[in-house]
């Protein structure tokens, strides 16, 4: 399978990673090798096999909706790279 530079451009866009041209070039060879390894699965017959979403018998966990202790705004915002007036700060989105 060939993983073209165009595919990397598209997937990098989906992943929101601004790879440099050099990074994209360097990525092609290893990614193709890994995909070749993944392609091996095609040999395995999985007809009528249900995809396995959970390895343990998971059931929905319900609880009463009750108010519990949360964190102070200042503590949470302390990790934010930028904040203003008690809110996270991001570039303007809507004109």
């Amino acid at each position, binding site marked *: 399978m060939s*993983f073209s530079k165009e*595919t*990397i451009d598209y*997937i*990098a866009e*989906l*992943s*929101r*990673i*601004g*790879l*440099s041209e050099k*990074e994209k070039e*360097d*990525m092609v060879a*290893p*990614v193709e*090798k*890994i*995909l*070749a*390894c*993944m*392609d*091996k*699965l*095609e*040999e*395995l017959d*999985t007809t009528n*096999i*249900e*995809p*396995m*979403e*959970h*390895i*343990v018998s*998971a059931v929905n*966990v319900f*609880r009463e909706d009750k108010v519990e202790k949360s*964190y102070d705004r200042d*503590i*949470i915002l*302390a*990790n*934010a*790279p*930028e904040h203003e007036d008690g809110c*996270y700060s*991001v*570039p303007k*989105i809507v004109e």
Partner: protein
Amino acid sequence: MNGGKFVKLYELTVSQLSSLLKKKEINAVELTRTVLDRIVEAEPVLDCYINIIEEQAVERAEKVQKMMDAGELYSPLAGIPMAVKDNICTEGIPTTCASKMLQDFVPPYNAAVMQKLYNNGAILLGKLNMDEFAMGSSTENSYFKKTKNPWNHDRVPGGSSGGCAAAVAAGEAIYSLGTDTGGSLRQPSALCGVTGFKPTYGSVSRFGLIGYASSFDQIGPVAKDVTDSALVLNAIAGHDSQDSTSAGIKYPDYTESLVNNVKNMKIGIPSEYMRNNTSEDVRKAVSEAIELFEKLGAKCEEFSLPIMEYVLPTYCIITFAEASSNLGRYDGVKYGHRAKDYKDLGELYKRTRDEGFGSEVKRRIILGTYVLSAGQYDKYYKKALQARRVICHELNRAFDKYDLIMGPTSPSTAFRFGTKVEDPAEMYKNDVLTMPANIAGLPAISVPCGFDGDSMPIGLQFIGKQFGESTLLRAAYTFEQNTDFHKNKPVIKPVI
């Protein structure tokens, strides 16, 4: 002691030190200082830690000693200095995941396991080095430093919990907590000659663990012997309502499984574990272990597990997909790195993620996004979920016949720096013998079982049924009681 050789406190196990503490022959502060001194001595050579919290450790030791004196703390972990992998959140102490992305992240809360250890009187010494976001098998992917194998400083410690295994082997921590997604605590334990124990998925809370592939990730102890592993698991296992995959079972006292007896135990050895890439020295050490088990009354039998061929692609597809989703949260807004130069929100995301992540992390996000993308989903992701069910089924079928699966932990011993970084597919193959336990959520343990021609440690792995920790611990304990491999210590030559 030991033929005149003076044994240092940092060389002792949790159970030995706990007994000395209880008899008041030593105290927690003195013990903590001794291990901190050992860190000062060995750390310039080994680089196990990302962050050492010397003052806080001594303060905590003073507090814990007072509580022990007042009869308020009885845990065997009380007063014992330890460390955790840097993807486990520690309140007020930076938790970086060995990534530039989280270089300045200080968690506002403790992971469930950390809180439990503190409640048991554990003394945290610091945070251990790892592959960035736990992605790797050599700890070479850390943003900060390269941890060296204590047995040979030109070789890797394994990974991703390389710092955890190297620190315990070198006496820079009495035990540690690592995490295991595809072998990330068993493989470094094997390569550094210590004991690494991945419990059944769901038996240790993942609350506060920074996620890589959430349906595979599991926290477990890295320790000097099987007894210590059981003592630590006793403290950290249990149901936790903060983790929706936490198992609501009755948790046993794991130390009750420490029985030196494997008579009539049925052990299956997959022939695939003993051929392919498995080196001659590893094969020989494991064959000797099989002979020993036979001699002790276990019934060992080789069997074929052809599904092993599909383990690596299944693992890669599902874990990369989960990683691409899990790591979507690093956007430069709520926490972590933020690029300086951007003109809009889209560019903020892209630059932040390009600058903050290392190349292996980016590669896995790209591949994970690809296998989930429209047009590829059925071919890769859905197919891998189907393969996961087939692999689980095949493993369960083996457990109809055998109480345990046994084999090497890693196909080879520790390799030299830089030898596999260029070819990631080759690097992933290191974990192929440990991946099945994560794919099926099974408990597995690695114990030292010999040395190769270059005196590098070899690990023996046991894989049990889900929640079959008891049988696993019994076999591992019996092996340890009848061998001396775990007692060997590496010699750390100080930098001159």
